[in-house]
């Protein structure tokens, strides 16, 4: 049955209810086996020597002493022919970012602190590290640059030979901004900055690898095994069929585990060299430097508005840091799309610096953009004397301006703003006394949208057994977002099989079918329609069997709660009574994801509200409560939906208040590559008061499950809402994230001096 012909659900029995995870038991009992828990017989442990300088040419690597160390079974460096694997290289090659920049696994030109130089495999992890410490490497230390504005100045140390500016500035243009600014009653201009944020998932990046002849099996912590399989096969010169990647559980990724890591390839080469399985997991310090980040951005934003609140022009000039190797970064999208504006000019540049390359990080570019755009919207509203919520309602765009004004399949930003404001008690909260100090209170709002990825391809299998139980076979990983639970709910909804009778096999390239990795909030949106399609096919086959058995036309039969009911309910046949199913033992439905709509655009929308208090003596900022109203289409599992939003809000608090990579300008090293100095929100930094409001406009056009994705929207406007609340509390516009006590005290002092 083609997926696109499935009718939208009416009343649902399973979907949309708050249902605990199908793998909750495993995750809380300690029995879930994460890749870092995999132990294989005869397994070796590997560790990597990394460049200790901001930029250096490796002159010599002396492995002699390391080779002799106790327990060492193999060493690997650029001197080995097996290590001549291209990286950060031309399109089609492993690690490819589509750029002509060539590098290799252990490239002697190290462009950031933490680049790989050599590796060791030994009997124990302690012995591997002893041997790494015994490697004698000599470096020609080169000047480095770790600030993107410095990197673009004439005479700056070269990060890449082709120059520190990556590519020409990219422009998006609509109308004429000069004319727009001329028509405006108020024109504001401000430069906003965000800091580099590190993913820091709990389970650190790594793999366990094993060769069986020329067949490579990898247990890897990633966001989808099919995103790892193809580049790994290319790196090892193997066909796809000889590379099996398994990632049943994984301990968080947030975008940093979409890519093949050098560690996986290093482990595979060491395993081939030694003829033994190899385990290679990074340390926390390594993960701070070498496996991605949300790049810092500088955003100059100019905006024009009429007294009645009509936007006339938006102009964004953005500069983003990409790290030492090409890794795209862009922040402009929401400036061009979220609010109705006839005249828009977006110009974005990217600079290389001597630091680890960025990777996708939960809504790449969007929280940065919100930090600028949503603070600007607040400032404009104040200038023209409009309520910030009203101002946004007046200006939100009901069509996709970035795609020739195509309509959206559903667009609930107005509802997000109004329902969110109601739940937050916005009007009263704004009028409440701010307090006389040292703690002062304020409230803020920010809106946002996410540029969803496309749905296909995805292929899923659902099987029904003669005892009425079922299995679900899908390629998607469950990042802790509840993927397995949500997909099982779809099977339950269609086939009436209770969750505890559904076996799930997922995220294994050896046993499941292709789907793209989980990024872009696309998993439920891409895969749940394929699951539904597979379940509907099972249902169709079962009805055919029943029709033959009952000698009734198929059209007279319905599948209800795991049984076949003849029209009028006069006859009922349980699945176990189907003789044909008993004869063949299984009925398999294969489902594929149908195409996305062509003439409409799918986008989730969000409005978030924050209340903060700021201590004007110490500079501390505390978030007191948050309300998040989301139009992400249908809610599949209310429990995991809420959890994703709560998690996104927490991450937004970190982006707003504490998280910042600090690079030392003299040495080019990261100064805070640990969780003490790089501060992730803890239980003491977040409010217990977080309200999640799902807005479901019953989107029947986005796909057959009516879902649009929630993971990323959840964190897009959070920091901006906090910044706007900070302004409301203090009267100070804080343009540079994060809002640290030191920043706050400096700004308070400046205001005192100005009088």
């Amino acid at each position, binding site marked *: 049955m083609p997926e696109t012909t499935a009718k939208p659900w009416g009343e649902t029995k399973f979907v949309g209810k708050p249902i605990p995870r199908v793998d909750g038991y495993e995750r809380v009992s300690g029995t879930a086996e994460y890749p870092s828990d995999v132990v294989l017989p005869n397994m070796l442990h590997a560790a990597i020597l990394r460049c200790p300088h901001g930029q250096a040419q490796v002159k010599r690597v002396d492995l002699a002493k390391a080779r002799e160390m106790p327990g060492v079974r193999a060493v690997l460096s650029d001197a080995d022919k097996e290590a001549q694997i291209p990286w950060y290289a031309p399109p089609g090659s492993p690690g490819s970012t589509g750029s002509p920049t060539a590098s290799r696994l252990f490239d002697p030109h190290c462009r950031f602190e933490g680049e790989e130089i050599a590796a060791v495999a030994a009997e124990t992890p302690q012995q591997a590290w002893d041997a790494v410490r015994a490697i004698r490497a000599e470096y020609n230390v080169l000047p480095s640059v770790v600030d993107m504005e410095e990197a673009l100045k004439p005479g700056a140390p070269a990060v890449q030979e082709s120059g520190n500016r990556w590519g020409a500035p990219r422009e998006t243009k609509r109308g004429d901004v000069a004319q727009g600014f001329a028509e405006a009653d108020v024109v504001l201009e401000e430069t906003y900055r965000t800091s580099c944020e590190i993913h820091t*998932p*709990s389970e650190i990046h790594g793999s366990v690898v094993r060769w069986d002849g020329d067949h490579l099996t990898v247990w890897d912590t990633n966001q989808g095994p099919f995103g790892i399989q193809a580049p790994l096969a290319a790196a090892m010169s193997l066909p796809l069929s000889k590379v099996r990647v398994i990632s049943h559980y994984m301990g968080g990724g947030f975008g940093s585990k979409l890519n093949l890591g050098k560690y996986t390839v290093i482990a595979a080469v060491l395993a081939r060299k030694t003829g033994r399985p190899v385990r290679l997991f990074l340390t*926390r310090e390594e993960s701070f430097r070498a496996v991605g980040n949300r790049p810092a951005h500088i955003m100059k934003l100019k905006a024009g508005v009429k007294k009645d609140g009509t936007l006339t022009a938006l102009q964004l000039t953005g500069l983003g840091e990409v790290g030492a190797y090409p890794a795209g970064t862009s922040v402009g999208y929401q400036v061009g799309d979220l609010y109705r504006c006839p005249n828009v000019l977006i110009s974005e540049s990217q600079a290389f610096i001597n630091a680890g390359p960025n990777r996708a990080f939960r809504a790449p570019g969007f929280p940065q953009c919100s930090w600028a755009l949503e603070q600007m919207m607040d400032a404009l509203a104040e200038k023209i004397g409009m309520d910030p919520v009203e101002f946004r309602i007046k200006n939100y765009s009901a069509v996709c301006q970035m795609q020739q004004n195509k309509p959206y399949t559903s667009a609930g930003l107005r509802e997000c703003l109004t329902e969110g404001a109601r739940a937050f008690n916005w009007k009263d909260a704004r009028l409440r006394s701010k307090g006389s100090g040292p703690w002062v209170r304020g409230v803020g709002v920010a809106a946002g949208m996410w540029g969803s990825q496309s749905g296909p391809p995805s292929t899923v299998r659902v099987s029904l057994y003669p005892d009425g139980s079922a299995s679900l076979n899908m390629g998607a990983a469950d*990042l802790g977002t509840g993927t397995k639970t949500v997909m099982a709910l779809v099977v339950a909804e269609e086939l009436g099989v209770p969750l505890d009778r559904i076996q799930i096999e997922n995220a294994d390239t050896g046993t499941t079918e292709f789907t793209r990795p989980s990024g872009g909030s696309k998993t439920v949106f891409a895969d749940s329609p394929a699951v539904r399609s597979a379940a509907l096919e099972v249902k169709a086959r079962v009805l055919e069997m029943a029709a033959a058995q009952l000698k009734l036309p198929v059209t007279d039969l319905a599948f209800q709660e795991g049984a076949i009911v003849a029209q009028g309910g006069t006859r009922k046949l349980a699945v176990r009574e189907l003789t044909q199913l008993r004869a063949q033992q299984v009925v398999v439905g294969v489902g594929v994801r149908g195409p996305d709509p062509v003439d409409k655009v799918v986008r989730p929308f969000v409005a978030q509200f924050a209340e903060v208090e700021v201590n004007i003596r110490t500079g501390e900022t505390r978030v007191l409560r948050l309300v998040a109203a989301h139009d992400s289409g249908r809610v599949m599992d209310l429990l995991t939906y809420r959890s994703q939003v709560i998690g996104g809000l*927490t991450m937004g608090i970190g982006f707003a208040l504490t998280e910042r990579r600090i690079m030392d300008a003299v040495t080019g090293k990261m100064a805070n590559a640990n969780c*003490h100095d790089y501060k992730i929100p803890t239980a003491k930094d977040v409010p*217990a008061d977080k309200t999640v409001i799902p807005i479901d406009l019953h989107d029947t056009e986005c796909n057959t499950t009516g879902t649009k994705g929630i993971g990323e929207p959840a964190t897009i406007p959070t920091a901006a809402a906090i910044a706007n609340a900070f302004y409301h509390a203090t009267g100070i516009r804080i343009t540079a994230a994060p809002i640290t006590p030191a920043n706050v005290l400096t700004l308070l002092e400046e205001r005192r001096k100005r009088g």
Partner: protein
Amino acid sequence: MRKSIRERESRTGLSRRRFFNSVASGAAEAAILTVPGAVAAEAAVGQAADGNMVKTVLDINGRSHSLSVEPRWTLLYVLRDRLGLMGTKASCERGECGACTVLIDGAARYACMTLAVEATGAEITTVEGLMRGEELGPVQQAFVEEDAFQCGHCTSGQVVSVEALLRKTPQPSIEQIREGVSGNVCRCGAYANIFRAVQKAAELRKGGR
């Protein structure tokens, strides 16, 4: 409720002090006896690299395990890589995140910051030890019901910290809950649900679960 060194010595027959005497000699010995555990372990590395393993007995989840360890091995490494108790998770391995939290004599401790030999003679409880056979313990059950996690990788540590909290403070306030899990980082950001799960766990425990 930590037992005194003397009590432990009598239970196991091997004290920390005597252990270090047994592996160190000469000048190193004086240094080892006056420095904290981590530094002492560093000094003992040379001994162990020559195959100098020491015998120890660890009391884990009510079972006694006799094994030979290198003095520098952390309790975390021994639990996971030597005893196969993979419920205790390795993450930062430098005492910053709490993923490896276990109970040592009833108190929440980072297994990555505890040498295996330091834990000799103490009662060690891991997340596996909080199960009631195949059934989830009350804290674990509450975590499932309140969805107090996402990826689940920090969850073992969270669960163990909450167990320690509730043993000491059966009806904690929200501030006591925050304090109780403040040493456990959850990057997925499930704290608001964790707070609710702790309250639910307190109820379940009161009800005799």
